[in-house]
């Protein structure tokens, strides 16, 4: 007893000291960034706001994709490498349904209704594809060593890309957009129509998702399955269906992101999922993988970081965009490995 007490007394101050240093560095970094932001704001307030809005728009799209990573990781601890490509397919499906089938993009008022219908269709298509990949591949590997489903996800990523290549061809394609250029003019600031639409679509989706997970029976089943599959079975929860449902939710969000991306940037590429997927995955990790609010926060943060870095007078510029994002990710992982809102893994039993 006496020995352990002495040991405890010995080791505690040391630990506390290190924690203090880490917190100090963290706070110093935050203060530095804040000063840098204020500096930029003073140098050009209008530009600052415009850049922030563009960052927010991008961040909302990242957030929608990041949710798919975090939902699937949260329930079966799989990093779904194919998820970025599912997003890419969402944008390609949108180009096919909205432009080729519905002939939207002519500037008529009916386009808006067609876009809404397309949103529902594309969300359903991506949900269906995600369920299919779970049913055909991951479900069979649920009891296999962790590497097997991971490699399978890489394989599915290639299948999705091939599918995108088939539908979209090997080069980038441009499409007419429903959302017109320009935006809402508020004094010196112009809020792009696309920014407004992205927010108007994303916020309700996030609220619905949060309602499903927190309040519904299916959501309860998801949370229980995420914590202990066998215990969930003993409660009468259909675990297979619950996991499939989770894939459906993630897929639907990726589909919505695909549509919003196309309506913002107007292009499709068969390999667009790689880079965006990677950044959205980073967002999920940054926010704390497995945590839904974390994914949204991470997505918006990375969108803003990229926006500020690429667009502000004292930023590093667009070619440094990825470097800055990943530097920030690495710094965060050093100081807070579980992510901003993630729980330390000790809690996981």
């Amino acid at each position, binding site marked *: 007893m006496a020995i352990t007490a002495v040991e405890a007394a010995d080791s505690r101050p040391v630990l506390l000291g290190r924690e203090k240093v880490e917190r100090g560095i963290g706070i110093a970094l935050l203060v530095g960034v804040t000063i840098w932001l204020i500096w930029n704001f003073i140098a050009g307030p209008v530009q600052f706001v415009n850049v922030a809005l563009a960052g927010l728009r991008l961040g909302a799209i990242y957030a929608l994709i990041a949710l798919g990573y975090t939902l699937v990781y949260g329930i079966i601890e799989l990093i779904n490498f194919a998820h970025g490509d599912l997003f890419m397919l969402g944008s390609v499906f949108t180009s096919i349904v909205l432009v080729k089938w519905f002939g939207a993009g002519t500037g008529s008022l009916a386009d808006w209704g067609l876009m809404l219908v397309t949103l529902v269709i594309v969300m359903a298509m991506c949900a269906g594809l995600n369920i299919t990949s779970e049913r055909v591949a991951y479900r069979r590997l649920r009891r296999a060593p962790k590497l097997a489903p991971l490699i399978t996800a890489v394989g599915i990523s290639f299948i999705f890309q091939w599918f995108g290549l088939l539908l979209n061809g090997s080069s980038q394609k441009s499409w007419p957009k429903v959302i017109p250029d320009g935006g809402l003019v508020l004094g010196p600031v112009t809020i792009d129509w696309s920014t407004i639409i992205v927010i108007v679509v994303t916020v309700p989706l996030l609220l619905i998702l949060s309602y499903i997970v927190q309040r519904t029976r299916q959501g309860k*089943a998801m949370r229980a399955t995420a*914590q202990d599959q*066998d*215990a*969930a*079975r003993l*409660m*009468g929860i*259909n*675990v297979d269906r619950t996991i499939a449902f989770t894939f459906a939710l993630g897929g639907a969000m990726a589909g919505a992101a695909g549509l919003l991306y196309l309506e913002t940037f107007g292009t499709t590429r068969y390999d667009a999922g790689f880079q965006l997927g990677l950044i959205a995955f980073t967002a999920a990790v940054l926010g704390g993988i497995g945590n839904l609010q974390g994914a949204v926060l991470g997505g918006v943060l990375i969108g803003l970081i990229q926006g500020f870095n690429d667009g502000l007078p004292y930023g590093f510029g667009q070619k440094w965009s990825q470097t800055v994002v990943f530097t920030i990710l690495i710094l965060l992982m050093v100081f807070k490995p579980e992510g901003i809102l993630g729980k330390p893994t000790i809690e996981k039993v």
Partner: protein
Amino acid sequence: MTATESSPASTRPGEPMLSVDDIALYYGNIAAVKGLSMRVHKGEIVTLIGSNGAGKSTTLRAISGLIKPRAGSISFNGERLTGKQGHEIVKAGICQSPEGRRIFPRMTVSENLDLGAFLRNDKEGIAADRARVLELFPRLADRISQKAGTMSGGEQQMLAVARALMGSPQLLLLDEPSMGLAPVLVDLIFDTIETIRDQGTTVLVVEQNALAALRIADYAYVLESGSLKLEGPAAPMAEDDEIVRAYLGG
């Protein structure tokens, strides 16, 4: 005289509620249980005892559909359970408080109890059962909004039993419900099991604490290395010195 081979079925009239017939259970290629048959009749407390690794938990897992028997069959109220999935077996009326408690650590006590009633729609019935389990375990009422993972081992054990009861099962499977409890609480748990039975739930209980289990049980099965060693009415078994010494570590 021993309680063995005395055509036990004759002492238990009527159709069995749960009937396990000649099942073989494997983990990979390793047999955990071979040729086990057992019966549980309505209104009974039946205990399944045996030393560590005998296959008791494996048997309960098979009844709940968490592992599939390689041979043999399990039926409940005349309906075949083999081949059904876990959630379908809960629907049929069998709930389990598993070994190691397996409560949902990041949910509150209250949410854990709600999940126990996941398949039920009868609001009044659920409320009544909630009141009943909180009366059985007043400790849980005190901690109703605490995260289950932060409770003490004994409290978690109570929660596991309470959660299983929230499913309002016809048959309750308990895997070592006295595990990790202080002696006073062990007595309380065994009293509670009797109360649960008196309130109309049939109980199959696995216990390390064999003598205590035999005291409250009507009928007992003794497993050894995955095979049935003994079966018979519980009371005489508890009094048989030879059996106690040989199988129950008495």
